[in-house]
């Protein structure tokens, strides 16, 4: 299918690889908006995307994103976007490296790499499209799948999910934020801040997979999902005693019959030392 971007009036046409369209993502998926937020954030930094930025992804629905943009990029093996990024950054420190991948890729098979990257503080931005499921392989439980939700591998019961914000704070990331894909207005600004952070910046980007996870777990359509994200999101209130950073206050809550019930959002940490 030939798509003429100018007819669609897309103002990021020169940043996207039209050759790769149509993309593989389902309609209603968060990934389109997430990618757009990322590209807008990258544009806002004023850097030359083609010469100064490298976008690295792993495997999964999100993994394909690196092929869709006019950044230099690499689509690595499953879970290995972060070590690849470490090689790029140490090969040429002038490059801005952005890891854009999913929750299964970054926190299951790639979990070890994440904690070490956070500890090591090589300058990179890690954005996790966190939709709590392995979408590309058909809907298996991921490390952020919620308790009591249905996947093809957790018919009655799933174990506790990772709280990615808590994990990133604990591992020592320098910038930690969480928003949802519905926050596409503020996200480019947050992504810009993340890119400009000197050290490891992490964004837990709560996202929806309506086609596979949502239809089994309380958000069957994309518009329900977007409303659900906005209604469930609660901006964190920064407390002097730091109690807003306690795990119970950063945890995402979910009900398999109605979707998300609480999503603490905001920037949890800036430039930790």
């Amino acid at each position: 299918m030939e798509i003429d971007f100018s007819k669609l009036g897309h103002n990021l046409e020169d940043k996207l690889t039209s050759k790769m369209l149509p993309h593989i993502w389902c309609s209603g998926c968060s990934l389109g908006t997430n990618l757009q937020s990322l590209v807008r954030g990258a544009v806002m930094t004023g850097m030359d995307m083609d010469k100064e930025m490298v976008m690295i992804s792993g495997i999964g629905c999100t993994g394909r994103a690196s092929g869709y943009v006019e950044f230099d990029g690499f689509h690595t093996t499953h879970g290995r976007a972060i070590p690849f990024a470490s090689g790029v950054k140490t090969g040429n420190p002038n490059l801005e490296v952005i890891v854009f991948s999913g929750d299964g890729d970054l926190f299951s098979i790639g979990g070890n790499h994440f904690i070490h990257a956070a500890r090591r503080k090589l300058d990179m931005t890690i954005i996790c499209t966190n939709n709590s499921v392995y979408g590309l392989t058909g809907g298996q439980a991921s490390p952020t799948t919620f308790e009591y939700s249905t996947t093809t591998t957790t018919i009655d019961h799933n174990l506790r999910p990772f709280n990615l914000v808590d994990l990133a704070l604990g591992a020592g990331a320098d910038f930690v934020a969480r928003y949802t894909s519905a926050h596409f207005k503020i996200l480019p600004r947050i992504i810009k801040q993340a890119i400009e952070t000197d050290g490891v910046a992490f964004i837990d980007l709560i996202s929806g997979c309506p086609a596979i996870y949502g239809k089994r777990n309380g958000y069957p359509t994309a518009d329900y999902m977007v409303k659900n994200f906005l209604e469930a999101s609660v901006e964190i209130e920064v407390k002097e005693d730091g109690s807003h950073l306690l795990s119970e206050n950063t945890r995402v809550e979910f009900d398999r019959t109605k979707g998300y019930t609480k999503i603490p959002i905001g920037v949890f940490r800036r430039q930790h030392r």
Partner: protein
Amino acid sequence: MKKQPRAMAGRHLDSGNIAVAEGAIYAGLHGYYGYPITPSTSIMEHIVKRLPHLEEPGYFLQCEDEIASITATIGCSWTRKKAMTATSGPGFSLMQEGIGLAVMTETPLVLVDVMRGGPSTGLPTFPGQQELMQAHFGSHGDYIIPTFAPWSVQECFDLTVEAFNAAEALRTPVFVLSDQVLSTLKEKFVIPKEGEMEVVNRAHPGETITWKGTEISEDLVPGMNCFGEEKKAFSTGLSHDESGHVDLTAKTFERLTNRMFEKVHRYAHLLPQAEKYMMDDAEIVIVTYGSTARSAYEAINLVREQGLKVGMYRLRTIWPFPEEDLRKSTEGKEILVVEMARDQLTWPVERALLRRVHHIAYPMGLIPPPSVITKKVREIGGK
């Protein structure tokens, strides 16, 4: 700290692992990524003393595991910098995933595998040659990776330089298979002055490079467009077209994989050739490689004194296997394969010669002593 030169030109008395590290630095190493594992560790311990202190400093990163080491090596190479990792046995197993990615994305890099006894944790501090087949078939899918095997400390240096050159010229990962004996064995070796040995750098798109006086065809080895350069650089472990973009059609996949084989085979004559010792009048030929060849060399000198006509075909490039050269050089001769493995080197040898050969399998973590080889040779020679 005082800046160090790249080429530590002159005579040295040191181990194979140090020679490997110096060879890499001589060849232009920028990024080293590794994880501690015996017997390869002293390579990275030497690199860390050298690489960050060069006039043009390189980067050393101790990774969280071997999977990260090989993947970071690939990442570094995509910034047009020379990169390497080194490991042993279990680490080589973990790296197989990344090796496939390096092949598929045609990434120049050097991986030094210092072999020890296996399977599993096996014999960490004893030698083995049981990773020969793994170097060929370890990762899934069809591929061929140039694999060199030194037998002396000098060759640990020389073949590491050659490995970088082959990697750059052919846009491929290259293996150096050393072993535990060479890793700690100290002997004299010489580092040439900067510029005395050829150092090859990969081609940019549209540029033609020469290696050992031979022009490398851009049709077989496309110039590499790296990160931060003019054009968009992209690649993927998925099947892809020349621009690096995903294309899962049979036609593209066939074209890609055929070319990846063809480029290694076409230039195989530029890879280190086998050393033939006392082969002219030999009736029995010992086919071997690595530190085992040192024992075979000694054995040959002993039995020659007793009038047995024995020679040695010492492999320096294992993969692609020099089938034709071995066949031609051993016509009508008895063959004895000696290896620190149960049954690995015999496979390519018998396949090349289309006949059964004599064999000393010595997989118990010891280098076969010359006496074991002389005994077998006498048996074969009827003396």
